[in-house]
Structures are given as C-alpha cells and as structure tokens.
C-alpha cells in the first residue's frame, strides 16, 4: 500500500503542472484523476505524477520520502485544492504531508491534524501512457518557445470548426543546413501569424541510407507537423525558464523540460500531445513578395490609434478602414447606429493613396505582442492580403526572432 511523505510546496508545484491535462467534462471519471506512482524505494525516492485526457498527457516528478511503494489514482482538482488549502508551514518547520492508501482503497492525505480521505479508482483502469521513443531531438530555450507560441496561437482556428487542420499551430523547420529556424505558423483562413527563431539544430541521425522506415525528426519537421492548441496553452503557462527538448514521431510530439522545472535525477517533466492529422495550407503563397507598397509606422502609435478608433467599430465585424496617404495613415471607422471616428498618425509612405478595410481585432491581437518600435505595413491592392512586419533591430538577445502577420482585407 502506497505511503509517502512530501513537502507542501513541491507537491503543489507538481500538481499545478499536470492539472491542465485532466479532463474537465467528467465523461470518463478516471481521466479526472491523477496517477501517482513511486519510482524507487529509497529514503529519498521520487513519485511520478501523470495526467491525461487522451489527447495530451503530462508527467512530472517530485522527490518524496517513500515509506512504501505503490500506485494510486486520485481526483486531480480535489487533491490540488486540498493541498492548496493546507496551512503554510513556517520556514524552519519540517512538516510533511502524508499520503497513503488504505486497505479499503481510500487515499488518505493528512497534514498536521487535518485528514482527508478520498475515494480512488483502481489503477488498472487508468489508461496506459505510452513511452514514446524518438531517437532525434533538438533543444530550444523555453522563454523563446513561449514567445513564439504567444505570437501566433491566437490566429489558429477555434476548434469545433470544420477546418480541423487549422485548429493547431504548424511547426516547421525552415532555413538551410547552416541556419535553421523553427517556424510556427497559425491561421484561421482570415489571418495568419508566423513566428520563427533560429535554433541550433544538429542533424544527428541523418543517415545516408534513408531506407529507414521511420521518418526521423528531421524529415518530419522539414515537412511540418500540426500541434493542437491545448498542449501549447499548457506550455505557455509554465513560469520557469530553462531549455525544452522537443522530439517528434509520426503520432506525437514530446516536450521535455530541462532546467529548473521539477527536474530530478534525469527525470524530466514531459508534455506529450497527439498531432493533428491533415495538411496545413500553403502559407508561403500569402507571404509578401515583390511589388509591395511599404508604409512605415511606429508600433505604439498604430496600436493606440486602432484601440481608440475601434471603440466605434461595428460589434460583429470590428471593421476599420486604413487610408494610406502621403506620409500619413488615417484610421477610420463608421458605426451605422452610433456614429463615426477617425484618427491620423504619422507614417512614412510615398505612393498612390489606398483604402483598405480590416478587422481591428486581428491587428490588435498581432501587434500587442510586438516589442519592436517600428512596423512595416506592406500591401498591394484592396483584394490582396495586407502584411505587418516588425522592423527587427535585434531586440531579442542573441537569437533572431522574426514575426509576420498577414491579414485578409474585408470587402466593401
């Protein structure tokens, strides 16, 4: 019968990490539970905590004093709330939370004089998480990855939609052999966001005889994989810094956290997700090529102005009109019931004046994440996509990060 003692802070941190992978709808009660297993029976052993909703799974480790080995499943949310409500222990105090399983199959969680007895579900009913082996992998800074995800994820299509292949973020390896970029692309058909960062990618298993049936990560990533939003939403929640080790096989992607994030003796916190099947649309064709007119504007000016003017935008369409004039950008909106608004900001532009109608929300989503001061707006006609690119002045330390936002104009 399982029995171990654990520090409150450690336990709470581990539990909050895995919460996101438990099922909320309660269709399958066992998926609302966590699986806690002891790893090795020593005085200072570890427990492995896993959660899954059959789409993503998260496992993490935590060091504990194991008294007896065992496995148990306990309701994730309840356990988290219970541990959270235990009183703070004073700094010098050495109080442990005691977790054990009784003969009757109850999970008993006690701390000082508080006792909680929780029902459990037999471990045998817990879905088996598969250990996925991927020979090849690469590392990326967690901070960078978070930034990349945050710069594109809002553009992906909300699921339940028919366009399931758009309900995730496309990860693709771009660049040549010398400079590799990890590129993230998301689109919902009306807008597209792209973010890329240089990564040090060393091709370790690129064998000359490519008769190997399993495609290695290089080929997979070169072709690109679509990753569901859910796992990415969990990843951006992690506050610590460190490295992420990413490996991919034909069905899944695994993010292993290095560094300060609950990492014990080589046991790493793992985020696993299934991939979205299907083909991602050809995003390259909407990226700007030649013959584009370019307007330069300050990020803050544009952002503030759009926020002001969009107060009077139509509630459903959020439409605003951009008038590109000589060295000036006029932002206008008309609301049929309430009135109209306009604002003019300074901009660098020489060329034919042009008016383009756009969804203000989409632009706001994109530029609110941009640290650069200057933006380039590229456009051609009222029917072709409008592109916003931050003017990169090497603001991100060491590594280069590129962002591109593409927006389809609205019809008149």
């Amino acid at each position, binding site marked *: 019968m399982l029995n171990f003692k654990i520090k409150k802070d450690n336990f709470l941190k581990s539990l909050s990490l895995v919460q996101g992978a438990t099922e909320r709808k309660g269709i*399958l009660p*066992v*998926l609302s539970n966590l699986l806690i297993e002891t790893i090795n029976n020593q005085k200072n052993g570890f427990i492995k905590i896993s959660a899954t909703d*059959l*789409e993503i799974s998260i496992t993490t480790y935590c060091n504990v004093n194991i008294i007896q080995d065992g496995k148990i499943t306990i309701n994730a949310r309840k356990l988290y709330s219970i541990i959270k409500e235990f009183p703070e222990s004073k700094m010098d105090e050495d109080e442990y939370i005691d977790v054990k399983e009784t003969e009757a*199959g109850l999970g008993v969680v006690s701390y000082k004089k508080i006792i909680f007895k929780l029902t459990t579900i*037999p471990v*045998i*009913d*817990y*879905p*088996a998480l*598969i250990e996925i082996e991927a020979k090849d992998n690469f590392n990326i800074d967690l901070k960078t990855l978070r930034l990349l995800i945050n710069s594109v994820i809002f553009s992906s299509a909300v*699921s*339940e939609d*028919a366009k*399931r*292949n758009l*309900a995730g973020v496309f990860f693709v390896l771009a660049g040549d052999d010398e400079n590799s970029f990890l590129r993230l692309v998301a689109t919902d058909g009306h807008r597209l966001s792209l973010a890329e960062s240089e990564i040090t990618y060393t091709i370790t298993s690129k064998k000359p005889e490519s008769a190997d049936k399993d495609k290695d990560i290089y080929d997979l990533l070169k072709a690109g994989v679509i990753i*569901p939003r859910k796992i990415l939403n969990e990843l951006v929640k992690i506050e610590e810094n460190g490295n992420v080790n990413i490996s991919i096989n*034909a*069905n*899944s992607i695994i993010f292993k956290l290095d560094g300060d994030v609950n990492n014990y003796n080589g046991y790493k916190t793992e985020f696993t997700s*299934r*991939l*979205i*099947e*299907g083909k991602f649309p050809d995003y390259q064709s909407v990226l700007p090529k030649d013959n584009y007119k370019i307007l330069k504007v300050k990020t803050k000016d544009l952002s503030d102005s759009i926020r002001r003017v969009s107060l009077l935008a139509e509630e459903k369409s959020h439409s605003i009109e951009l008038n590109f004039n000589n060295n000036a950008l006029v932002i206008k909106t008309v609301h049929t019931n309430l009135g109209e608004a306009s604002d003019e900001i300074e901009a660098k532009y020489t060329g034919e004046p042009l008016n383009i109608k756009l969804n203000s929300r989409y632009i706001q989503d994109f530029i609110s994440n941009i640290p650069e001061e200057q933006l380039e707006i590229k456009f051609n006609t009222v029917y072709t996509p409008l592109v916003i690119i931050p003017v990169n002045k090497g603001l991100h330390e060491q590594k280069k990060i590129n962002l591109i936002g593409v927006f389809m104009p609205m019809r008149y």
Partner: protein
Amino acid sequence: MIKNERLKDYKYSFLNIAGHEKAVHFLKNLALNDRIPAGFLFYGPEGIGKRSVAFSFAAEMLCKDLNLGLEREGNSPSGPCGECPACRGILNGTNSNFIFIEPKDDSIRIEKIHELNSYMSLTPFYDNYRFVIIDNASKMNASAANALLKMLEEPPERSVFILITTSMGSILPTIISRCQVLEFKPLSEDLLAKYACDRFKDVDKRTLDVYSRLSRGSCSTLEKLVTGNYLEYRNDITELFSNGLFYSGSLSYGYIMSEKFNRIMKNSEDDPQGTEKFLFETLLLILRDIFVYFMTKNEKLLYNIDISGKIKEIIKNAGLNGNMIMQMIELTAAYINKINYNLNRTIATDGYFVRLLKDISAK
C-alpha cells in the same frame, strides 16, 4: 480488486459471440486480409448481439497480443487477452483508439459528432486501426447524420466506423451507400437455450427453456429475464385472470385488478415507467398465448409454455371467444403506446381493466 476478477472472463471476443457465424466469419476474413472498409452498418432486431459483435471486432483488432497471434498463425485461437491496456481500455472507455457513442436523452446530437471529428483529426496514440462505434445510429438527428456523412466521405486513415441500428429506414441512404451492410438475424431458440445453459449454470433447465422462448431471439432480453424476476411478475399477473370474479366479468372486479396490478408495480424497485411497460408487455404476451391456444389448441406454440394449464383454464372458465381476445389485445397494445404520456397511473389502469372486462360482462 473486484475489477481484476472481471478481467478473467473478458467479454469481448468473437469466441463469446453466440450465433452470427456468417457475420463473424466475414469480419474475420476482412481482418486477415487487412481489407477493412471504413464504414459498417449492422442492422437487425434489438438485443441480439450487434453491439457485442462490434465490440469484439474492435477488441480482436486492437488487442496487442492477439494481433501478433493473427499474423503468426493466420487465425486467432484464443481471443483478446483482456489484460493489455488496449483490452482494458475498451472496457472502461480509456482506449484512445476506440470510441463508443450512444444516444443521450434519446438522441445523438451534432455536438457529439463534432467532438468525434475533433478527436479523429488527431493522430492515434496506438499505431493501429481506430474504431468508432455508434449505437442506435438512427437516433442521430438530421444535422448529426449529415456531419457524420461528411466524415464517412473522407474517413481518416485506418479508421473504422460501425453504425448499429434496428431499422435501416431511419438511416440516410447516403450513409448506407458508404457502409458495408451486415444483417443480423434473431438467434435460434436452440442456440439461445444452449447459450443460456452455458451462461447460467445455476438456473434450472425448464425455466431456462421458458426464458429462451420468451426472449424472442435476443441474448440481452434473455439475460434481463434471467437476472430479473420475470416469472414472479408473470405469475402474479396470471393470478389476476384466473379468478372467479374475472370469469363472471363483474365490472367492479376491474378496480380490484387495477389495485392489485398497481401493487405489483410498486413492489418493483426499478423506474416506474419502465416497469409499467414491462408489466404490460408481459400481460400482452399472456393474452397472445391465450389467443394462440384458442385458435390452434397447440401447446407447442405458446411462449409461456409452463403455464399452459392456467391458460386453458382461463379460456374455458371465462368463455372467451376470438373476438373478445382480439379486443383485449388491441386494448393492451393501445395502452402500451400511451405509457409515456403524463397520465395519472391509477386512473389509467382503472380504466384499462374495466374496459378489459366489458366484453366478458356483456356476454
């Protein structure tokens, strides 16, 4: 700990299927040749094992250990192991390659199909076939059916949809045309009797024979009959009829019958509406036997074969004739149709039993 025992006789295996040799053989062959189509439609009367066949098919295909066996020996000698994660997952719904959908609140809504679509658009955890089993597929509303049709038109790779229905008429023709249709027939009485003997060793043979007849070719009805106390209910109801007051056709006896009937109903612990339906169907069966015996005088045709003496007695003593029995049967059938209405049960049954007695008293 109880669950461990359950695994010992793992339910879902072709070996445990009673009858349906043709369907099983057909499915086995498809599996062996690795030519499994993306859509199946299983149809046939309720409770004869369509779902078990579908589940077993999935279990046979998904069980890891067995899959190896299939390749090695060309045939599966043992059936799914019941112990690997895949097998367990089918039982408790945590196998990510196996999705089971059934009507909720008597319908399958489009949200459910959308959910399925989202789920199926992800790559599977196990690199194997994915099974989607939709029970009572005719309960899909129009939008859900069309959403499903869209999935069937372009099924994800290595996925198998199995729709189960009792009536082909209520399935979109466009869906039918995309499915391999398998018809399931009611099981023969001998087969059922044999199945019953194997399954319920502690029940006496004579009772089982009665049950096998009564279950009209359906395993699940048979199981329900054996585990429930059908005989007790039936005897209680028969008692209502074999009574001097019934024979004389006194109308006031209708109220006594109704009261007794309601008392039987109250004694049951199941939900009242279901019990009421069940009791009236039992009553209908008794009337059917009375009618059949009256017309043919052949005991062998009776369902309730063990109470043939009682049935003869009732016919004789009440002086029933064909018309009267027909009237009673129609009355009962009409009442069963109205059970779901929001009626005061006591008044409704009062009315029913008095009307039942009307013809006898007019005589």
